[in-house]
């Protein structure tokens, strides 16, 4: 497990558009970079990010090696009801890291 930062308001009004910012600690190794012995460092990148709100996918992204290390993503979402927001990052080896956040909608 690596460190994930999620910036999300704890409370929101119903129907309000909220901004979500996420960042995962990850090298995003491109697979194009030679190491000191001249061989390419194997690719190790986050390929897929999915944000689920009470079971419904509200946002997702496909990432390529051109995304910077420690991939940062910012997007918006309509707050409709209190519940759980799940963030999932999947790398090119199929490993997924999941982080959750709660939101209170009034």
């Amino acid at each position, binding site marked *: 497990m690596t460190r994930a930062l999620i910036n999300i308001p704890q409370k929101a009004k119903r129907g309000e558009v909220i901004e979500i910012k996420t960042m995962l600690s990850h090298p995003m190794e491109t697979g194009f970079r030679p190491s*000191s012995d001249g061989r390419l460092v194997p690719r190790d990148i986050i390929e897929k990010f999915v944000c689920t709100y009470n079971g419904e996918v509200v946002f997702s992204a*496909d990432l390529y090696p051109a995304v910077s*290390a420690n991939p940062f993503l910012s997007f918006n979402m309509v707050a409709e009801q209190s519940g759980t927001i799940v963030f999932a990052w999947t790398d090119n080896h199929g490993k997924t890291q999941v982080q959750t956040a709660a939101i209170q909608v009034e």
Partner: protein
Amino acid sequence: MKTSQSAILTRRAALAAGAGLGAFALMPTARATPETMAAAVKTFTGGKPIADGRVKLEISLLVENGNSVPLSVTVDSPMTRQDHVKRIGIFNEKNPLPEVLTFHLTPRSGRAQVASRMRLNDTQFITAIAEMSDGSFWSGKAEVIVTMPACVEE
């Protein structure tokens, strides 16, 4: 597209047409686009036409370090169930791969505004293409000058 027209322009023809076409030839779109990016864009759009406008790509004009360059995309859309942005693709001309990032939005996104950070291997144009729920494609682009590219450090 303008780029294919410019590609067949020879230097002599360009000079001959200089007076009339000068302004056109100097437009950023007249710059040769590498084929890989054109192919990646075609895969994204399925070969459908792309209109200019509605997409605002914001990125620094001058970047000192290409390893982490903030960019944000805003698309002019009401984001309702009937009319919303489905996808936003970011493409580049001079990195090893033409694709950078694809955002998938839904009506639940509320606002068609996304941001991330990317690597830049050279001074180049970055293109953002948005697919609307009605199947149309819109694009916006921005030039970035990079003084120290990504991919140079060990």
